[in-house]
């Protein structure tokens, strides 16, 4: 397997200390739930309004959902190799007979890199008010996403450095959005992305210390909880009715 025999980088992308095995998957499962809620509601908005911006937003979070599912699958293949012996697992295993838990982990992590970067890139395009008319800019960004994914396989830190850079721009845009509309929910969104930005900063150094990985995961959890708050606030609001 090519990915297992790379001359650089770690053999597998598991940085978690043993006692934290599975907890990171739970955190990522929470991220998946938050992302799916945003995918569902923004797609509903698109169906109602026919405005493309909602469809793109939905696509961005769908990409992040796939990225997190890929990471959960990849890490679980290492944490719980017996999964490959379950009914679904053995079917997959027979189909891809040559795959070891490490190769599943490696492929899943490449998918995680690609979809995570794609998701943040689309999000960056939306909030930067770029449309599909800016084809050359989009093509260039897509190229950088592919390059970043490719190099991240060898130097995983580049992946987190790129997500950090993208999130820095996204957080700044959301901060500007909050300054413009001065709304509590927009503040939560800006804080959520700021926290996710910090988590990516910790992930960069996960290779040196498993504590960094644990901290990064916990900060990431906090970020997704914060992202859920404005969503809950929107749905908690009672509709205004006419005075009788």
């Amino acid at each position, binding site marked *: 397997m090519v990915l297992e025999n790379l001359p650089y980088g770690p053999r597998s992308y598991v940085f978690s200390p043993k006692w934290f095995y599975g907890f990171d998957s739970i955190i990522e499962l929470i991220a998946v739930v938050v992302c799916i809620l945003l995918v569902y509601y923004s797609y509903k908005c698109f169906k109602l309004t026919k405005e493309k911006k909602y469809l793109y937003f939905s696509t961005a979070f769908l990409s992040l959902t796939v990225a997190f599912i890929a990471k959960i699958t990849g890490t679980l293949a290492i944490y719980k190799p017996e999964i490959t012996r379950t009914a679904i697992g053995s079917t997959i295993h027979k189909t891809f007979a040559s795959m070891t838990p490490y190769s599943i982990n490696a492929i899943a992590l490449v998918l995680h890199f690609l979809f995570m970067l794609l998701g943040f890139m689309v999000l960056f395009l939306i909030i930067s008010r770029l449309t599909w008319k800016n084809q050359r800019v989009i093509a260039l960004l897509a190229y950088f996403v592919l390059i970043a994914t490719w190099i991240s396989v060898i130097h995983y830190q580049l992946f987190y450095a790129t997500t950090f850079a993208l999130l820095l721009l996204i957080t700044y845009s959301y901060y500007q959005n909050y300054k413009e509309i001065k709304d509590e*929910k927009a503040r939560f969104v800006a804080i959520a992305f700021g926290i996710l930005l910090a988590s990516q900063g910790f992930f960069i150094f996960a290779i040196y210390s498993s504590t960094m990985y644990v901290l990064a995961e916990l900060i990431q959890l906090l970020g997704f909880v914060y992202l859920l708050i404005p969503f809950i606030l929107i749905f908690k609001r009672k509709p205004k009715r006419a005075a009788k």
Partner: protein
Amino acid sequence: MIEKRRGKLEIIADILRSIQNKGGKIKPTHLLYKSNLSHAKLKEYMETLLGRGMIEEKDVNGRKMIFMKEQGHKFLSEFDRIKEFSDSFGL
């Protein structure tokens, strides 16, 4: 500053909000003034809203009045929610 042109849904929401702000009923002339539309355009939108069951026209003491229906309230509530979502997430 140049104001962004209103979309079809925004116009519908503005019409319904004008009715809502008047306690759920409004005179057609007031609605024309509040909605900031031409007579022809307002008529077009009114037909859409009547067809979708969001509003109804009734005679009150020999005068035509426009009333907002449950569907109208539901639409406005959903529209406001989408607007909040859109503003919060910078869309």
